[in-house]
C-alpha cells in the first residue's frame, strides 16, 4: 500500500494546546517536498509556518483556514499520487477515531524545565533530544528566556542532546546578576556546563546571549565546538535604548505591545499572550533590579559596553553570524563588522527575533554549521 502521512497540528512549546489554521500555502493535488511551507498555524503566543516532513502529493486538506484544532490532530494528508481516494478517506477517518488528546499531552508535551545549582547559582534549563552529536546550548537575549527557542530547539535535537537555558536574571534562574557586565552571565554559563558535565558544546546565542556565548568561547576555547550568534550583541556599539528602556519600564499591556513590535519585521506577531508572559516575568521578585542592572552594565551610556570583534576573528569559520535584515534592536549593519572567516547570513523579512520569525531558515543554517564542527 502506498505511504500515507498525516499533517498534524504541531506542539510548539510547553504551553501550546491547540492551533488555528491561518493560511494554507498548498492546494490539494500539489506536489510537495520535504521542507516546503505547508501552512501557517496561529497559537495563542505566535504564528509560525509548519513545513512538510514528507515528500509526495498534498492529497487532502482536512482543516480549513479559520478552524482551530488541538495539538496532534490531523489537518491534511500527504501521500503518493497512486494512493486511492478511498484509502485517503479511510486514513483520515481512522486517524480521527483513534485520536486521543491525552496521548499528545503526554507524548508531545515535551520535557519540563529543570533546575540545577551551578556554583551555587540556580539555573533553569530544558533538555531535549538524544544522540552522539556534540550537545548544543541555546542562550537567549536581554529579557528573553528558554522559550524563545521553541521553534529551534526541537529541530536541532534529532541527533544530539540540546539545552536551552535561562540566563541569570531571567526565567526560572537566579535573579542575581552582580554588576550586570557580561562576565556575570558568561561565568554562570560555564558553571552550568561544568555542573552538567558538558565538556564541549556548540553554543547558540541570541542578542545579548550572542555576546555571552562569544565571551565563553574566549574564556574557555576548548569547551566550545562552534558559535552561532543571532542578531547578536558584541559586533558594534549601537543598541536601541528605546526598546531596552521600554521593556524595563513598560507595565501596561498596550504599551508593551508597541515596544515589543521592535522585535519583529511583522509586528502582528506580538500576541496578547506574549505580552502577558513578559509582564508576568517582570513581576517576579528580583527581575526589575536584574534588568536595570544588566542594562546599566551591558549598555552603559546607551552603547554596547563590550565588543568582541577580536573573538570573531579568533573563531574564524567556527563562527556563524545570522541577522534579520529588519532588526530594530541591534542593526543588521553590524554584520558587516564581523571580521575573519565567519559565515554571515542576513535574512530578509526578519527582525530581531529572526529565529522565531524565520525559524526554518535559521534552523537549517544552524544544522549545517554544527554538523561541520561536531
Amino acid at each position, binding site marked *: 500500500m502506498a505511504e500515507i502521512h498525516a499533517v498534524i497540528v504541531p506542539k510548539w512549546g510547553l504551553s501550546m494546546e491547540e492551533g488555528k489554521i491561518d493560511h494554507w500555502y498548498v492546494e490539494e493535488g500539489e506536489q510537495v517536498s520535504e521542507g516546503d511551507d505547508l501552512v501557517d498555524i496561529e497559537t495563542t503566543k505566535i504564528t509560525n509556518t509548519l513545513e512538510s516532513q514528507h515528500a509526495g502529493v498534498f492529497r487532502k486538506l482536512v482543516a480549513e483556514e479559520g478552524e482551530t484544532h488541538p495539538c496532534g490532530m490531523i489537518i491534511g494528508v500527504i501521500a503518493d499520487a497512486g494512493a486511492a481516494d478511498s484509502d485517503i478517506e479511510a486514513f483520515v477517518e481512522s486517524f480521527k477515531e483513534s485520536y486521543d488528546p491525552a496521548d499528545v499531552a503526554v507524548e508531545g508535551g515535551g520535557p519540563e524545565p529543570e533546575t540545577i545549582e551551578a556554583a551555587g547559582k540556580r539555573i533553569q534549563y530544558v533538555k531535549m533530544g538524544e544522540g552522539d552529536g556534540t550537545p548544543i546550548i541555546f542562550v537567549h537575549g536581554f529579557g528573553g528566556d528558554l522559550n524563545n527557542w521553541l521553534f529551534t530547539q526541537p529541530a536541532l535535537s534529532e541527533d544530539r542532546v540540546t539545552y536551552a537555558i535561562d540566563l541569570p536574571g531571567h526565567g526560572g534562574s537566579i535573579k542575581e546578576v552582580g554588576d550586570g557586565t557580561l562576565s556575570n552571565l558568561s561565568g554562570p554559563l560555564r558553571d552550568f556546563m561544568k555542573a552538567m558535565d558538558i565538556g564541549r558544546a556548540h553554543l547558540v546565542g541570541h542578542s545579548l546571549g550572542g555576546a555571552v556565548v562569544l565571551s565563553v568561547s574566549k574564556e574557555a576555547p576548548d569547551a566550545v565546538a562552534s558559535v552561532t550568534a543571532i542578531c547578536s550583541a558584541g559586533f558594534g556599539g549601537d543598541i536601541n535604548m528605546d526598546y531596552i528602556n521600554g521593556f524595563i519600564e513598560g507595565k501596561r*499591556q498596550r504599551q508593551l505591545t508597541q515596544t515589543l513590535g521592535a522585535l519583529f519585521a511583522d509586528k502582528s506577531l506580538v500576541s496578547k499572550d506574549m505580552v502577558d508572559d513578559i509582564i*508576568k516575568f517582570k*513581576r517576579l521578585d528580583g527581575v526589575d533590579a536584574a534588568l536595570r542592572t544588566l542594562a546599566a552594565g551591558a549598555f552603559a551610556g546607551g552603547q554596547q559596553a563590550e565588543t568582541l570583534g577580536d573573538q570573531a576573528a579568533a573563531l574564524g569559520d567556527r563562527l556563524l553570524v545570522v541577522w534579520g535584515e529588519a532588526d530594530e534592536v541591534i542593526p543588521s549593519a553590524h554584520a558587516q563588522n564581523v571580521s575573519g572567516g565567519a559565515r554571515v547570513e542576513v535574512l530578509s523579512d526578519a527582525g530581531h527575533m529572526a529565529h522565531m520569525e524565520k525559524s526554518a531558515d535559521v534552523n537549517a543554517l544552524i544544522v549545517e554549521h554544527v554538523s561541520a564542527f561536531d
Partner: protein
Amino acid sequence: MPKKSVRQAINEALRQEMERDPTVVIIGEDVAGGQGGSGDVDAYGGVMGVTKGLIGTFGPDRVIDTPISESAIMGAAAGAATTGLRPVAELMFVDFLGVCFDQIFNQAAKFRYMFGGKARTPVVIRSMIGAGVRAAAQHSQCLHPIFTHVPGLKVVMPTNAYDAKGLLIQAIRDDDPVVFLEHKTLYDIEDDVPDEAYTIPFGEANFTREGDDVTIVGFSRMVHIANEVADKLEDKGISVEVIDPRTTSPLDEEAILESVERTGRLVVVDEAPPRCNLAVDVAALVADKAFGSLKAPIKRITAPHTPVPFAPTLEDAYIPNAGRVEAAVHEVLESGGRAAAE
C-alpha cells in the same frame, strides 16, 4: 508552569511571605484550627482551608487562633501593625465586618493620616464575598463598595489564582491597610502560577479580553461572566474588551477611560446591589471624563436592591448572569444614540 487553585495560590503567598519576613503573622478564627481546644491542631486552616498547613511550619505564635470576636481580631491586628508586625487578619465572611467597623474605618484607616505620616498600619484584612453557595442573606454579600468608599483603605478583588498570589504578596508588603476580598465561588479555579514570589501593583487593570466594539468592566466573579460573553460574541463577530480592574481602591481609571475612548460603549458589571456600587462609580467616571467618546448610554448590570435570597431559584436570579450581560452588550450596540445620528 504549575497549575494551582486560588486556594493554593493564597496559601503559597502567605507561606512565602512568612518565610521571607518574620514579622508576618496570621490572626483569625480557626486559621489554625482546634488550637487551645480539644480538637486536632491544623484540622481546619480557616473556614475554606486556605491557611491549612501553616501552623505546622510557623507555630502558634505566628498563626494565631482567636475567639469569635471580630472587633478583637481587627483591633489586635491594627494595633500590632502599628508596632511593627505585618498581620494578615482573616475575618471569614465580609458580612461580619460590621462588627468591627470602628477598628477598620476609624482606627486602621486613619492612623497614617492622623499621626502625620509617622504611623504605618501594614495590615491585610482577608475576607470572603459573594453569593452563589446557598449561604443566605448574612453570608453572601458583596460589600466591597463600603470599603472602597473609605479613604485610607486599599481594596483588592482577585479573580484568578495568578492574580491572587501576586496581589496578596503586594498587600502584605504594602504599608497601608488592605482589604483583600476573595469570592467564595472562585477558590477552586486553577491557572498557571509561578513558584517564585511576585507582586502585582495595585491600580493596574488587567485586560482579560481585547476588543474594539464594547468595553465591559467587571469585578471579582463578574469578570468570568464578562469573559464568557466576550468569547461567545467573538464567534458572532462582535469584538468585546473586558477589563478586570483587580483593585477598586486605587482604581485604574486610565485603563477604563483609554478603552472607552476606543470602543465608545460601556457595560459595567458588579455583583453588589445597585446603589453606590462600583458600577455606579465607573459609570460616573466615564460620564465625567469620557462623555465625548460615548456612542451609547452606559449600561450597569448589578444585583437588585434586596438582601441575597436564600431560596435557590431566587438566589440564582439575584446574581448577574451572562444572559443579562450579553443583552446589555446588544443594547449598547443597537442604541439609537450618537452612532445613529452620525
